[in-house]
């Protein structure tokens, strides 16, 4: 029976092509607007590392100016100082810990045919790799002891390995950066987290990850500065050592804490650390440490832009208009068929059958609209990519979003179909036969 109703629905769509087209286009546009904005919203805002996002915590300490917060009201700085990063790394009280900063590295390839180029690198500790889990293609991460030795080693991204070594296994080969030679210990596979969640301060959160990784201790030893954000509230005396000892914040520190118990232990440890430092005359503001997990940190840093949120709101209002529009048109369509419905009722069709038939017809409209809407969503995302290439990593449809598009269009069509269908059921069997 259902198959028959589907067939009837499709047939009835063909009977009034203009009206049907209007309804389908309406639903399609509404779905496309919603799905396009939702896809971007979902890609920006969904958990980038769901299996351990609650274990990874971003460390914030309030070493800022006693006369004013880093950001009012009373937000601690969004990064930590070099001396605190090093002290906390050395204390090693978390399950894992990685301090990091962004560096610029002029690469000088061995191969003559490749011109020297400027790569964006990340200076970080050995724990970075097990914490954030980039996939390795060749080799692996470096070890803690290599961190301690300030080893001249590097992990390359897949693209960098492609450029320098044509994509072959380059483990053990050498890379020249400025005047320092690094030996390759690992090469990453394709790694493109939608949000570069480990570094959202002072860099575009939807950029690609870095092109190479070097040990933190090495970068400090060879005097590399950050090309990420750097903020100071005091005058920094001359010289590199003074800068490293200063209250300038330019380090990002992540810790991994496996259980809530570990989190509270670490919180206590951090509080004690700051209290100790207060005795030395640092940290003059009230105790204000933060240990946000990944999702809370991204929310705190407003990674999902307000434009995208407004777009989602507008898109749903737009879908609302399309739905009201479809209700009107479906109603018009069903009511025009009053005679036919009356006839079927008179011939013995039950209200339930009429209800099923018309609801299925509404569903056919919804699904056709949804299918076209899905194509339009693809087009919409492509247009957003064209308009703003900073969003290239967050304008892709994934499985769950396609499924939600189908579900949304069905839901929309049924919502729109409910009232007209109910009206159709109420057509009395005899009335319309009289005038025939």
């Amino acid at each position, binding site marked *: 029976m259902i198959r028959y109703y589907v067939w009837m629905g499709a047939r009835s769509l063909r009977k009034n092509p203009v009206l049907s087209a*209007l309804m389908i286009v*309406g639903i399609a546009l509404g779905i496309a607007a919603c799905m396009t904005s939702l896809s971007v919203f979902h890609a920006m805002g969904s958990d980038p590392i769901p299996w351990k996002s609650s274990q990874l915590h971003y460390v914030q300490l309030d070493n800022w100016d006693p006369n004013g917060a880093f950001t009012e009201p009373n937000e601690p700085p969004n990064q930590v100082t070099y001396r605190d990063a090093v002290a906390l790394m050395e204390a090693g009280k978390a399950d894992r810990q990685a301090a990091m900063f962004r560096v610029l590295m*002029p690469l000088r390839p061995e191969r003559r045919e490749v011109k020297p180029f400027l790569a964006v690198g990340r200076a970080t500790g050995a724990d970075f790799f097990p914490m954030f889990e980039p996939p390795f293609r060749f080799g692996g991460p470096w070890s803690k002891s290599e961190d301690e030795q300030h080893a001249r080693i590097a992990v390359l991204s897949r693209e960098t390995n492609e450029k320098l070594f044509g994509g072959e296994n380059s483990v053990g080969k050498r890379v020249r950066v400025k005047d320092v030679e690094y030996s390759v210990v690992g090469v990453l596979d394709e790694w493109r987290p939608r949000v570069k969640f480990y570094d959202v301060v002072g860099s575009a959160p939807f950029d690609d990850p870095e092109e190479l990784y070097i040990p933190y201790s090495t970068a400090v030893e060879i005097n590399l500065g950050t090309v990420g954000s750097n903020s100071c509230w005091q005058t920094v*005396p001359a010289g590199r050592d003074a800068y490293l000892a200063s209250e300038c914040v330019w380090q990002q520190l992540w810790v991994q804490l496996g259980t809530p118990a570990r989190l509270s232990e670490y919180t206590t440890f951090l509080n004690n650390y700051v209290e100790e430092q207060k005795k030395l005359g640092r940290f003059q503001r009230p105790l204000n440490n933060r240990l946000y997990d990944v999702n809370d940190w991204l929310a705190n840093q407003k990674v999902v832009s307000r434009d995208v949120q407004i777009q989602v709101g507008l898109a749903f209002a737009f879908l609302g*208009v399309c739905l009201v*529009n479809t209700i*009107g048109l479906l109603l*018009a369509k069903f009511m025009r068929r009053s005679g036919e419905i009356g006839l079927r009722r008179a011939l013995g069709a039950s209200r339930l059958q009429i209800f099923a038939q018309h609801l299925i017809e509404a569903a056919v409209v919804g699904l056709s609209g949804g299918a076209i809407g899905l194509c339009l969503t693809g087009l919409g995302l492509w247009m*957003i990519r064209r308009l703003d290439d900073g969003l290239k990593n967050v304008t892709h449809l994934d499985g769950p979003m396609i499924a939600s598009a189908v579900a949304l269009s069905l839901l929309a069509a049924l919502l729109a179909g409910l009232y007209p269908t109910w009206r159709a059921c109420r057509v009395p069997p005899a009335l319309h036969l009289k005038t025939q």
Partner: protein
Amino acid sequence: MEIRPILSALMRSKIALILIGLQIALTLAIVCNALFIIHQRIEKMGRPSGMHEADTFYISSIGFGKDFDVKRTYAEDLATLRSLPGVKFATMTNTVPMSDGGWSEGVQLKPDQTKSTAATAIYFVDEQGIDTFGANLISGRNFRADEIGFHDRNTQGWPASLIITKALGEKLFPGEDAVGKQFYMDKDRPPSTVIGVVDVLQAPWPGSKIVEYSTLVPEYTPYEAMTRYLVHAEPGRRDEVLKVVEAKLGEINKSRIVREARTIESVRREGYQSDRAMALILAGVIISLLAITALGIVGMASFWVTQRTKQIGTRRALGATRKDILRYFLTENFLITSLGLLLGAVLTYSFNAWLMATYEAVRLPWYYVPIGFIVLWLLGQMAVLGPATRASRVPPAVATRSV
């Protein structure tokens, strides 16, 4: 006007009233708010950067090798750049407006203030800085060549002479001429004196509150072996000069990487990319929304006309003219639209209030809603015109037939 019979007819089929009214209401709310956002974005994009944008570009390089000497590189590069045919001016710089990356400092009027008076963007330039940027010096004087110093990791304090923008001058010294006044870039050091004021030179962050506050500092910045130059070409010769400069810088000094030059036009395009995207997306939403609403009205009105064919015929048979029928449907649409618009006005302001509460948006100017009213009235009348004309052509004889 025969409003009462129309009203009573409407009341008999409230659903049509509700559906069209709701659609109109939502459309008004979305269109007004979206238009307002578009207007703000266009206004933001239209602000002058203070630069001569058409003929300028910047180019950076980063040196390597033990004997790479940044100070010498600056001198050699600038001498070469200024001697190239087609180059009008060239300066070193650390950043450019709209690039979204730069250096800011808090400045204050007295050394014992606990809070700074204003924050300003810093542009490190030399004596050709103002001309290369294309900024307009409105009072005081430019830097002299002998005033240009160096600012590296070991530098303490700031130069004695600075040039600031008019907006920063207004903020620091309201109502006075800033030239000759002093302020502190670093409270532990002697103050600097304003020697000149430029009309406009935006800070590098287009979305920031301090976008009009900039300070020009006469210093070369030999950080990390990085050099960056801004070049101002003769009118129309930018692209040609750009290629020559890219090649030439690599030739002068081989132990560095010369990065691709970027025109200020492309910096502007990228700097306002997300604003332009937002404006275009919203424009797309507005157009499709108006189209959907108009088509919805056409659909519903045709349905009513079909439904009421017999009544129309009866009225015609009873002496109503074609014009009366036409007027009936137009008036009916006007009434429905007006009711929808009233609800829409409430929705519009609620949506605006939500935006204000959640996103620190600005209050919607009063004239958006009346303009929206007029647009949607016209849209409704135009949409209903077709079906209404069809209704007016129903012959009186229909009344005598049974269907």
